[in-house]
């Protein structure tokens, strides 16, 4: 059994024993200089759940996502993943966590420009120590799944915005992470391309049981989520869910 598989098994076991909660934030406070971004934000995300974090610009939703992912350390409060407290973990441990168990999709500019699309997708696998041939083979499977056939050898500059974002999505999911953090994944796309990306994202996440924390200010994007919360003035409020998932 590979290290990744062991970690995954442990993670799933811990998630079940903790009542399905994979990621949890408790009373997070984080300021940038004199500007407070989070003022006691609390949140929990269940295993396999797709959670949309909404809110206006500057509300602190991206900061919350970065704290949940171990990118930022809160000034106070706690962040738990998999039954482990990660906000007090050393940087190296958090880096390993992000590499092995988290995936990321951002708004733009996330592809390494010199690499081909398939090499970009294979990068997390190569980082995990998988051989080149296998990593590229695994990466190529995602091209078919994400309607990117024929784009394998293209560079980021040769892809449209929607294609580049789907490549980024493939890169975020290729290592089968426990949690995918997506920060405005459709923010730079038109509505049609955005919907296409979200359809693929939600389908792929559900298919492999990946938990998704999705930051967006777009209600149409949030509609793909199982649950929505809203961040306002650095605090998290639950949002009653109306319509059905598209």
């Amino acid at each position, binding site marked *: 059994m590979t290290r990744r598989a062991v970690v995954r098994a442990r993670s799933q076991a811990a998630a079940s024993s903790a009542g399905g909660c994979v990621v949890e934030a408790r009373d997070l406070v984080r300021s940038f200089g004199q500007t407070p971004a989070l003022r006691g934000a609390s949140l929990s995300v269940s295993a396999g759940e797709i959670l949309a974090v909404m809110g206006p610009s500057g509300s602190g939703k991206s900061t919350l996502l970065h704290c949940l992912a171990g990118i930022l350390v809160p000034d106070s409060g706690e962040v738990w993943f998999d039954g482990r407290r990660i906000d007090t973990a050393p940087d190296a441990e958090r*880096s390993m966590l992000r*590499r092995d168990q988290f995936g*990321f999709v951002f708004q733009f500019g996330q592809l390494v420009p010199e690499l081909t699309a398939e090499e970009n997708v294979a990068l997390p696998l190569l980082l995990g120590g*998988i051989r080149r041939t296998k990593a590229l083979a695994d990466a190529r499977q995602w091209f078919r799944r994400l309607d990117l056939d024929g784009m394998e050898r293209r560079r980021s500059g040769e892809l449209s915005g929607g294609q580049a974002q789907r490549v980024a999505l493939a890169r975020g999911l290729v290592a089968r992470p426990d949690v995918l953090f997506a920060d405005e994944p459709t923010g730079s796309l038109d509505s049609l391309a955005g919907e296409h990306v979200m359809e693929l994202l939600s389908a792929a996440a559900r298919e492999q049981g990946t938990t998704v924390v999705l930051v967006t200010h777009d209600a149409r994007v949030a509609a793909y989520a199982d649950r929505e919360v809203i961040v306002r003035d650095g605090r998290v409020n639950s949002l009653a869910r109306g319509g059905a998932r598209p």
Partner: protein
Amino acid sequence: MIRLSVRLTASSGKQALIRLAITTAAVALGVGMLLVTLAEINAINAQDARTAWLSTGMPGDVASSQSPVGSKSPAARPAWWLFSTDYFGHLIIDRVDVAATGPGAPVPRGLPHLPGPGQFYVSPALARLLRSSPPAELGHRFPGHLAGTIGSSALPAPDSLIIVVGYRPGQLSRAPGAVEVTSIATTPRGNGLPGYDPTTLLSILAVAALALLFPVLIFIGTATRLGAARQEQRLAAMRLVGATARQTSVVAAIESCITAVGGVVIGFGLFIVLHPVLQDASFTGVRLARGDFSLDLADILLIVAGIPAAAAAAAHLGMRRVRISPLGVARRTMPSAPRAYRMFPLLAGIGELGYFAIAGHPRSSSGQIEAYFLGFFLVMAGLVIAGPWLTVTGSRIMAGRTSRPAALIAGRRLADNPWAAFRAIGGLIVALFVTSVSAGITTTIIADRGSSANGVAGSGTLADQFITGESVSGKALTAVAAVPAAVLTGLTSIPGIRGVTVIHTNPDAVTSPGQNENDMPGLVSCAQLALTPAAGRCARGAAVASITLDLSGAATSGSQSTTEWHGAAMSLQRLQRLPVLMVIVGTDGASAVIERARTALEADFPYLGPPAVLTTSYSLSAYAALQRMTDVVIVASLVIAGCSLAVSVAAGLADRQRPFSLLRLAGAPLGLLRRVVALESAVPLVVVAAISAGTGFLASALFLRSELGESLRPPGGAYYIIVLAGLLGSFAVIGCTFPLLKWITGPEIARNG
């Protein structure tokens, strides 16, 4: 527009200011080096000008009226003049024998008057040497007593060894080679004076300056790319609000000018601060006199006006290549990927040198110069032309096979823009190639002349040649009819002398007018020759052998030092009656013995020029200067190449800070990004250094094989130490960018980038 440009430059954010600072530092470095080069050229020219009086009476000295010995001139000539070059150990002594024929005799600068018979003037350095050396080794060569010292205005350098010896006109007029002169030369001949060959020194300096300035220019070019993307955004924003293309071009030019002016000011400051140190540093091996290492007004104006103008022109040309539209960079001309045909000049150069190594070198000197110059030029230019193709080929192989993310990213980046990767190290190619060639050639020559078994014998053997001209039929004329027995006894009585061989004229030899005097045929007693083995040996059973005067050739290489001379049909008794062409003195190699023998020969055979050691090392002084210069060049250019690489790396990081910071957020360890940076910069550096050094040694091996018939010897430890130190210095500079990596890939970049 200018004020707006200045304000924009001053308030364009931290990244733009860093870019300005680095570019200014690069320009300052370039200006500093340019100033040092100009000052050094001025110093060499000043030294050269002070050697002019030593050229008096030489062919080409149009200022002097001259007539060689034997020609009768109806007009009275005020002074007899004879210049020669003497040696003491590895030191060169310029000697002028002079005899005033009247009170109007011309007097060189630096002397109060011409020395009278039995007097001599010496340079201060020679005065010190005379005081510290036993008279039998040096002082007895110069007849008379010290009348005074030569002033600094007649000394090329403070350490110059010069003597002016006075004679009676009747004495000197009989000396072979003495000429009558009416004035002192004021124009240097530019060559012919051992130790002061400005042509060679300036050539070496020119190559060194080029080898240094090339990396500096690359450094400046690389620095201007730092933050170029941000500058383009700024200019695009200006275009959006109505600025014309010409106006944006002016903004870019002003920014470049500000950098250039700052660099010029700092460069002059560096030159002034380092002036005392640089003045005492001997780049060419000759210590400089006070005031020689200086700049004239034209130099200063050239730098002050030329550098900013060149910077503005470069910025203007750059803006033509990158057209800024209101929506950003509209067009950037990118060359297509390099092709394999770029290897052609390199292979052609190696092929040309290889051909001469196999088929033998051209017969004429001019043919050899043309052949080798073309070969070396093709190889050097070929390395620069082939570099991008080699870079892209190597990086494609690396990226195509690796499973390591760092190697993959680095390889793809190198393959993506091999021009940029190679540009940063292009200067290094030239420097390392020149260094390797000079190290290979000088090591081999010095080793073959100084350390082989026969070389040792040669280095302890003196040859004193007495040829004064040639007859119409080409026979050598000599001033020495016979070597008196007392002279031979005196020489052999010096402790450490192993034998004396006398080479006589060969009356039966067929010669042609204009024949090289080194090829002049002579006859030698085999019994004597056996005591001076560096001159070769006789065929078995011969009592007298035919020999040529090319003895230094016989002793310079292992293959020729055992030269066997054919026997001649001549009796020993008849041989002794023939005029003498040369005397060879074999010693135990001790410098004191060599100098005593040399002094004795000079005293016994005055005016006939000093005896020379067979495997002379004086001619190696040019190689030594070249070696010293290339040592400086290689260390400096390696460090500059490291700076270029560091800036290039920083520029590359700035271009990719968002994807890199997102990679880091996604869990890629900082170590991975460091490995990417290290591979991107260190791999081309090491690979190119290896290829360049290897090609340099190959070219020098082919040259040595074809020209001298010798095999390349590995360079000494100093070469490896210098190259290693330079590479380590470059790696250290590259390592300095690692903290920058952590800084620019922090979470804030991903959030705000």
